């Protein structure tokens, strides 16, 4: 089925993914702004007592400023990630930082995962960044869809682990859950979409989750030991190494 999906279909799916990311992140930003707005309201409520010199009120104003800053930082992280995401659509197939791709994909997937009361954990090796050659936008889309696939097919597990491991000629991204995967119709359809997306990204699906609950993508390598880029995305990270979630 994967081979029969047309280029137009891939484009449509990419557009849908872009829209869903945008919509989800708009809600996340709105949540942060709503909190900031209420904090401003609380600031106004407390201000008259602070002006009268009540020490407790003055102290509370200080803590409110810190809490507002937290929400502003939350919005900045979203804007920064969205901006990088939007630019990733410019790049058809380029050497890119696979860790950034994974972290960005999981940053966006986190909202849906949270709404389904599950958890995401990223396990990426520390040290030099692995450069791979692929379409970063489509790979993000495939990783995001991979988390949805596991949520669709697993009944009990509340944790999905995404890990990155080096391979002889590139890198392997593994999405896994400790629980058995049931390939229902919706999951089968999603898996076909993912396979087509991964291929269009210039990568390869190495394992599908029907057997052991793991979805593996191979991304061809470019070169190793390039400049490291710090990432500040809020995805819980493991210590690196293996990808054993059983």
């Amino acid at each position, binding site marked *: 089925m994967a081979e029969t999906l047309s280029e137009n279909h891939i484009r449509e799916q990419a557009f849908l993914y872009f829209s869903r990311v945008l919509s989800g992140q708009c809600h996340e930003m709105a949540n942060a702004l709503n909190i900031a707005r209420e904090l401003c*309201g609380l600031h106004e409520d407390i201000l008259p007592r602070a002006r009268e010199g009540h020490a407790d009120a003055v102290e509370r104003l200080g803590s409110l400023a810190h809490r507002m800053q937290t929400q502003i930082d939350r919005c900045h992280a979203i804007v920064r990630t969205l901006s990088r995401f939007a630019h990733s659509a410019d790049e058809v197939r380029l050497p890119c930082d696979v860790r950034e791709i994974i972290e960005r994909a999981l940053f966006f997937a986190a909202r849906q995962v949270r*709404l389904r009361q599950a958890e995401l954990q990223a396990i990426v090796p520390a040290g030099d960044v692995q450069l791979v050659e692929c379409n970063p936008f489509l790979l993000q889309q495939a990783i995001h869809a991979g988390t949805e696939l596991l949520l669709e097919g697993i009944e009990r597990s509340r944790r999905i682990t995404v890990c990155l491991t080096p391979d002889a000629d590139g890198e392997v991204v593994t999405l896994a859950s400790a629980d058995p995967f049931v390939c229902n119709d919706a999951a089968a359809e999603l898996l076909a979409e993912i396979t087509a997306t991964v291929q269009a990204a210039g990568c390869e699906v190495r394992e599908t989750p029907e057997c052991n609950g793991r979805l593996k993508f191979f991304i061809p390598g470019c070169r190793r030991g390039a400049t490291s880029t710090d990432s500040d995305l809020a995805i819980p990270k493991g210590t690196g190494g293996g990808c054993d979630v059983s």
Partner: protein
Amino acid sequence: MSADRVLLIDDEMEFVEVLAERLRARGLEVEVAYSGMDGVKKSQVTKFDAVVLDFAMPGMDGIDALKALLAGTPELQVILLTGQATIKTAMNATRLGAVEILEKPTDITTLMEKIHEARTRHGVRAAERVRRQMQETR
């Protein structure tokens, strides 16, 4: 006259805590719940004049919570306070029994007015229910 008693249900903990503090400072009795399920449980233990309910929440979402709240207490006044207010959401929530749909951000004065109106309606509906029950037992 006792204070309006309100239950706030929202998974954004910081939002709900700050809003609760602001409403308490205006004389309301406020309880908070961070999930639809928790909110439904609290509504079964305590009588509230109004419930202010978020729409998008993990697990039991706002619509499911609305159904469960009204199944337990049909005259309960549920105000949907959401950042995802679409016409479809509003129509669905109204059809299911929500008395108000407010879009975040909402001014605190407006929210206070809606809660107070809800309390008045709640009193009227509860009195109607008692009257009906009395007629049925005659």
